[in-house]
């Protein structure tokens, strides 16, 4: 019997990479296939649950093939599977077979952001009264809700996602034409809503989320991208959808 550590390393590699069990000290080695199948099916189904629209775009057969290749290339690193699949969209972007379907990776990106939004908390939201009470609006600081996720794409993946939805079958009626798209995903109760925004709205949220919470700098970034943007209307929409955190 090899040392436990070596045994576990060899066995887990054999399961994840469909390796040869020949050297493992097992009785009834053929039954190792049960563990291989369990792992493959559970991870494949997990990916299909997180990426249902991508699965519809690819078809079950190709999705199974892509999932299997992804699992072999990037197996889970933790027993907490909530984060497994974060790199699936990037993996799809490198599959030569998908070169003629360039919107598929962004569809997967959008689905991953929806998954992250679903697992994120809702904090008490800033109200219109809270905003009106701010004494120095130019220097105010704003924070987006943790469940707000934003995406920019050269394809209208937000429209595609809404059209197909969870059980819809609108794919056959959907024609994909390149169109610069910005959207935000957020929790509306226990469901995920998608909100198509302009480039200015996207830059505003992007600034708040990734650079700085300053309203003034976020507004500057937004106006630079879209000079005609109405900041009042953007703020009102963020407040109305409860996307800003009450500080």
């Amino acid at each position, binding site marked *: *019997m090899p*040392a*436990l*550590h070596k*045994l*576990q*390393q060899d*066995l*887990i*590699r054999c*399961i*994840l990479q469909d390796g040869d069990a020949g050297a493992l*000290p*097992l*009785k*009834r*080695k*053929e*039954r*190792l*296939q*049960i*563990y291989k199948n*369990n*792992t493959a099916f*559970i*991870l494949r189904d*997990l990916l299909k649950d997180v990426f249902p629209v991508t699965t519809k775009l690819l078809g079950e057969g190709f999705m199974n093939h892509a999932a299997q290749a992804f699992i072999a290339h990037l*197996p*889970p*690193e*933790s*027993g*907490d*599977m*909530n984060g497994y699949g974060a790199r699936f969209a990037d993996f799809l972007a490198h599959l030569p077979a998908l070169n003629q379907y360039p919107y598929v990776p962004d569809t997967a990106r959008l689905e991953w952001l929806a998954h992250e939004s*679903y*697992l*994120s*908390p*809702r904090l008490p939201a800033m109200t219109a009264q809270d905003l009106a009470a701010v004494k120095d609006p130019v220097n105010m600081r704003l924070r987006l809700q*943790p469940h707000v996720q934003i995406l920019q794409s050269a394809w209208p993946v937000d429209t595609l996602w809404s059209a197909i939805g969870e059980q819809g079958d609108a794919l056959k009626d959907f024609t994909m034409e390149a169109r610069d798209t910005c959207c935000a995903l957020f*929790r509306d109760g*226990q469901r995920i809503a998608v909100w198509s925004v302009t480039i200015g709205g996207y830059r505003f949220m992007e600034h708040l989320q990734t650079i700085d919470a300053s309203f003034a700098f976020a507004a500057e970034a937004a106006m630079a991208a879209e000079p005609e943007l109405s900041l009042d209307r953007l703020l009102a929409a963020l407040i109305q959808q409860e996307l800003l955190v009450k500080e």
Partner: protein
Amino acid sequence: MNTQDKKAEKPFALFSGPDAALSSGRTGIGLRAPHAAQIIAGKPEAGFLEAHSENYFCIGGVPFEQLMACREDYPVSLHGVGLSLGAAEGVDDAHLQKLKALADIVQPVLMSEHVSWSRAAGVAVPDLLPLPMTQEALAAICRNIEHVQETLGRAILVENPSSYMEFEGMEMNEPEMIARIIERTGCGLLLDVNNIYVSAHNLGFDAKAYLDAIPQGIVGEIHLAGYHVNEVAGDDVFIDAHNNPVYDPVWDLYEAALARFGDIPTLIEWDSDLPVLSRLLEEAQKADEYRAALRKDKGTKNARVA
């Protein structure tokens, strides 16, 4: 060192018997996402709800909100499936800290993990892999359980595994391994009766003899579930799939377990091919009937003695 000595050393209570919060005699059910809204709205009769810990690690997310809503009306047990207690390289401390954060909020009546492993060489599988029954594996899992219990500040239960194959060179059998784990760490046993039945068939041992080899006084919870039959290399292998009702031979073994260990809090696990909630509750009621019959039988015997 006896259990009393260990109790004096630990800043938390070691396992001392089934939790009083689960003494209603009502059987619990696994909390699964498709049933959550119906449970929250309808509050059906169930002894307790058991949640797979990892599904609720994202504090504040939708699943977590559902769990907290359920917690208003039911005792909640947290049952982990990914901690990899039997890992030679130790448990993943980031994972353990997430579990602790969840437990600190939920304050579950029970916490349980598995006598298995699922992580090595920096990768993990979503399955419960068998441990070799060796002194080295015993030492590794005891070390990990002690670390987990010290981090959580409480005793946990560990579940006996279901197995499809075994290793060459075993140094003890499974009941011996489990008894030693519990003696060394002060945790309790989550006795999965379906796992015993499945493993007994797959590995060729006597399920009743296994039960008889488990010491009394260490069982804190019982699991019941349905299995699935697969043919592998010409043999029928029973797979612990949790995708069927509890089968008759498993009910028989459950009756024997109750007779040996007493009226232990019981849970029905049904994870795949999930039925409607009412069907799952029927299965829990069936377990209630076994438990009620045991209590009645014991009452009759006590009356005769008096």
